C-alpha cells in the first residue's frame, strides 16, 4: 500500500484525502478517543474529507458502494466481525480503501466482544433472550430472525455468527493500532505517520516496541510470588512493582502506548494495549511469565496459589485477545451440530 499513501491533503491546498471511520462489534469508545485528539481534529479535517463515520457524521453505505475501488485513502475500522452486516462492511471498506487500519483492540484482537467465543450463538441467544437473568423479560420467546415475514413484506436482520472474528481474520489489513481504546495522542501520532507518507511495512502495528513496564515509575526488585491477590484485597504501596506485591499486573506483557496510566494510580494493568511486537499469543506469553515467578516447587501449593489467586484465567489472560489468540475455533467448520 505504500505507493498510495494519502499524501494528497497535507494542508497545501491540494485535493483532500478521503477518510472513513467505521465501527463493527465495538462500544463506541474508539470514536470518543478519536474526538479526544481535541483541536487537532481540525488538522484532520483540513487533510481529509470524512466520507463515513456512523457515530459522528452522516454518510450512507450506498455512497460508499458507488465509490471507485481504492477511492478512500484511509479507513479506520474499529470493532470485531460478529454479524453478516459487519462482514459486508468490512469487505466493502477493504475494497474501497487504499489503506485499511484495524483500529483499537476489538478490530485487532477481538477484545471484550471476543470473549463471546467461549460460547456459540445458541448459548448467547439462550442467555440473552430466554434465560432467567433479571433483565430478561421475553414471555413470547422472541428471537432475532434473519428474515421475518410481516404483513408489509419481509424484514431482514443481519445474521449473527457463531464466532466473532477479528478484522484481519476477515479481510486483509494494512496496519494495526492497538488499545482499548487507542490513546488520543497515539491516534494523532498515527495520523501524523499517515500524513507524512513515511509508512511502515505492511502489517505493522503503529506503536511502540516495548511494554508498559518501560513507562511505569515503580521500582522492580525481585519477582517471587507466593500469593496472588485481587485488587480489593490489598491497598498496594505506590512505590513497588504491583506484581511484586502480588497483584496480577499485565504491564510486563502489554505493549506500551498508554504511558502506564493504570499502575500510576495503584491499579494493575489489565492488558488493553495487547501483545508486544512479535508476540503471537498474548495470553500464553503472559501466562508463562506469571507461571515462572510463582515461588514454589510443590505442585499442591502451586495449585493452591493459582486456584485462589486466579479464579478467572480467561478473563485474566485473554480478556482482550481471545478472538485473535491461537486458541481460536478449529480451522475447519465443525459439523452442523448447532441449529437454532
Amino acid at each position, binding site marked *: 500500500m505504500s505507493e498510495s499513501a494519502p499524501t494528497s491533503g497535507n494542508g497545501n491546498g491540494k485535493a483532500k484525502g478521503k477518510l472513513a471511520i467505521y465501527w463493527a462489534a465495538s462500544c463506541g469508545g474508539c470514536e470518543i478517543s478519536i474526538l479526544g485528539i481535541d483541536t487537532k481534529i481540525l488538522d484532520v479535517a483540513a487533510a481529509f474529507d470524512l466520507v463515513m463515520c456512523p457515530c459522528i457524521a452522516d454518510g450512507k453505505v450506498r455512497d460508499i458502494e458507488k465509490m471507485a475501488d481504492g477511492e478512500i485513502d484511509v479507513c479506520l475500522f474499529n470493532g470485531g466481525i460478529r454479524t453478516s452486516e459487519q462482514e459486508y462492511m468490512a469487505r466493502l471498506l477493504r475494497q474501497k480503501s487504499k489503506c485499511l487500519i484495524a483500529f483499537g483492540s476489538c478490530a485487532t484482537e477481538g477484545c471484550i466482544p471476543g470473549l463471546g467465543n467461549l460460547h456459540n450463538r445458541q448459548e448467547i441467544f439462550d442467555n440473552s433472550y430466554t434465560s432467567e437473568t433479571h433483565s430478561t423479560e421475553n414471555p413470547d420467546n422472541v428471537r432475532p430472525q434473519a428474515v421475518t415475514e410481516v404483513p408489509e413484506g419481509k424484514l431482514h436482520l443481519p445474521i449473527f455468527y457463531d464466532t466473532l*472474528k477479528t478484522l484481519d481474520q476477515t479481510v486483509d489489513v494494512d496496519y494495526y493500532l492497538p488499545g482499548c481504546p487507542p490513546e488520543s495522542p497515539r491516534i494523532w501520532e498515527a495520523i501524523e505517520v499517515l500524513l507524512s507518507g513515511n509508512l511502515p511495512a505492511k502489517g505493522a502495528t503503529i506503536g511502540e516496541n516495548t*511494554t508498559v513496564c518501560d513507562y511505569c515509575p515503580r521500582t*522492580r526488585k525481585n*519477582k517471587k510470588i507466593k500469593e496472588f491477590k485481587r485488587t480489593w484485597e490489598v491497598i498496594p504501596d505506590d512505590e513497588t512493582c504491583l506484581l511484586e506485591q502480588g497483584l496480577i499486573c499485565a*504491564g*510486563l506483557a502489554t505493549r506500551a502506548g498508554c504511558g502506564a496510566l493504570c499502575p500510576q494510580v495503584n491499579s494493575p494493568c489489565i492488558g488493553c494495549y495487547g501483545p*508486544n511486537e512479535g508476540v503471537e499469543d498474548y495470553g500464553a506469553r503472559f501466562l508463562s*511469565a506469571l507461571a*515462572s515467578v510463582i515461588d514454589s516447587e510443590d505442585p499442591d501449593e502451586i495449585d493452591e496459589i493459582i486456584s485462589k489467586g486466579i479464579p478467572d484465567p480467561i478473563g485474566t489472560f485473554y480478556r482482550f485477545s481471545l478472538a485473535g489468540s491461537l486458541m481460536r475455533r478449529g480451522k475447519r467448520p465443525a459439523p452442523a451440530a448447532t441449529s437454532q
Partner: protein
Amino acid sequence: MAEKIGVYVCHCGSNIAGKVDVEEIAQWAGENLDDVAVSRDYKFMCSSLGQQMIEDDIKKEKLTRVVVGACSPHLHEKTFRRACSNAGMNPYLMDLTNIREHCSWVHKDRSLATEKARALISAAVQRVKHQEPLEPMYVDVNPATLVIGGGIAGLQATLELADAGYHVYLVERLPSIGGHMAQFDKTFPTLDCSACILTPKMSEAGQHENVTLLTYAELEEVSGSVGSFKVKIRQKSRCVDYDACTGCGICVEKCPRKVLDTEFEAGMGNRKAIYMPFPQAVPRVPVIDQDSCIWFERQKCRACEKLCPTDAIKFDQEDELIDIEVGNIIIATGWKPFDSKKIPQYGYGRLANVYTSMEFERLCNAAGPTNGKIVMRDGKTVPKSIAIVHCVGSRDDRHNPYCSGICCMAALKFGHLVLEKTDAEVYSFYIDMRTNQKNYEEFYQRLLGEGMRFVRGKVSEVTDAARMPTEQGKLIVQCEDTLIGRQQRYPVDMVILMGALEPQEDARELGLKCGISCSMEGWYTERHPKLDPVATMTDGVFVAGTCQGPKDIPASVAQGAAAAARVAGMITKGKVMIEPIVASINEQACSGCKICNNMCPYNAIEFIEETETSRVITALCKGCGTCVAACPAGVITGAHFNNKQIFAEIEGALWDALQPAAESSSQAETVPASAS
C-alpha cells in the same frame, strides 16, 4: 530463494522399519513436500555409508538443508552435524527428527506410527527451511576441579586427579572427610577393616600438594559453564583458627559439655561441644558446635580458649565465602539413611532394642562406643538372638520402590560379626537375597555354613507384646515364612533394621545449583544409564558414587575414578566447544521487568542498572529457553528455536489438517438457513 532439502529416513535395522513404512515415507516426502530435492531411506543412516550418502548428496545435489529422520538427537545429532560439516554445510542447517524413541518404539499400530513419522518428517522439513547457520564457540578449560563430597567416591576422584597433576578443591560439609565408610567396622565380602583401607586415602588427600581441602564447608553458588565455572563456597565458622591449630586435642579433652553424637556415632555415643568426629579425622582441626557450646549458650566457660596452646580458638569467627574458579565439577554427595521411624510397626524409637543398621555399625565397630562389644541398650547384656530385617524402606511402594542394593550384603556381614563375637542366633528376614557382585554369592554361602538362619518373608511387625511365656521380655518378630507358607513369631533380644539408602535431603537443591536434574526419588540423573554413567546433561558436571543411585564401595570407587578420567580428558583437550544455541535479548525493546533474571538456571542474565534492561551473557547461556518462554514482552529470542522455526514445525506437523479443504471462507455458509 528456495532451499534444496535432502531428506534421509533411517530404518535403524528393524527398530524403526519394524513399525514405520520408511520407504513409503521417503518416497512421499520426495514427491509431496516443497523444496525437497532428494529423499532417501537407508538401513543405518548413522553408519559410515549412511553418512557418506548425505555428504555426497550435499556436494552433488548442492543441498542447502538436511533432514534426518532417525533416533534421538541425544544419540546422533553430533554424528549427522559432523557429516554435514564434512560436506561443507553449516551443521546447524541439519535437523534430526526422532522417529524412533518418539514413534516406532512407543506405538503398536504400524499404519498410525507411519502417519506420525510422516508428520514428524513434514515438521522437520518445514522447520529446517528457517534454520540459520550458527558458529560454535570455544572456551579454555580451567585445569582445576571442584569435587563436592569427601566420601570414598569423592576421595577417589580427588586423588586420581591430584595424582595426575591437576589441582582439586575438595569440599565436604562435615568437619572431616571420610563419609559413611569411616563409620563402618568391616567391609563385605572381604571383611577388610574399613578404617584401615580408608584412612590412608584420607590422609593422602589431606596432605596432597594438589588438593585444597575445604571441610565444614558447603557449596553456595555456581555460575559459569563447562571450562570456566565460578563457584562460591561457604566455609562455615569452626570457631577455630585452621592454620594455628595443631590438632593436639586438648580443647576436646577439656571441654565440659558432652552431647549426643547423632552424626558419626549415629546416636550411639557422645562427643564434646568442640569435637573432631573421630580420631583419624582429616583435617585434625576440631569445630565448635555452636548449638551446644556453653559460651554460645550463656557466655561462660571458654575452657578451650584458655587451654589452647596456640590460641587457635576464635569464638567470633564468622562464616567465610570463598570464591574459586574451576573447569569441571564432580558431585559425590552420597546418601542418607532412611528414617526407620517412618515404619512405626517395626518399633524403632519405641522399642529400645530395635537398632538401625548405622547404629549397629557403630555398635560392632572396634573404635565405637562399646569398643566393638555387641551389647543391648543397657550397655551390658549380650543378646542371645538377633533378627535382621531386610528391605526397611526399600522395595516398598509406600517408601522407596527401588532396591538399595547393599543391605543384603551388609546383613550378611552383620550376621558374620555377631556369630564371630557372640553365641547369639542370627535370623535374616529377607524378600530375596541379592548377592550379585564378585564374591558376594560366595559370602552368602559362607554365612549359610556359619549357621546364620534365613527366613524368606517380609516382616509385618516387631512387638514386645508377648502371647506366650517364651516370648516374655523379648521382641517378637512377626513374619510369614513364605517358603513354608505359615505366619511365624520369632522371639529375639535385638532387632536390626536394614534401612534404605536415600538421596541426601538437599540433593535437588544442590543439583539445581549445578544445573543437573534428579530422578523422581532424588538420585542424580546421568547422561546415559549405560553408556555415559558419570556424565550429566550439563557439560562439565559429573556425578560419582551413591548420589547417582545406591551402590557398594567398589562401584563408588570405580565411578569416582571414572569421573576423574572424564575430567582429566577435558583438561588435556584444553578447549571445549560451546553450542551456539543461546538466547539473546533485544535490549531496545526490553522494559526491564525482571521476570527473566531469576529464571535463568545458569545465572546467565544480568540486569544493567543504567539502561534498566537485561542482557544475556552468551558464554554462560546454555540455550535452555526458559527465559525465552518467560519473557512476557517476547523480546528474548532463542537461537535455533525461534518463533518462526517453531511455528513452521507445528504447521509441518499438521500438514494434513492444513490441506486446502473445501472452500469455506465466509462464515455465512455455516449459518443454518432458518433460525430458531
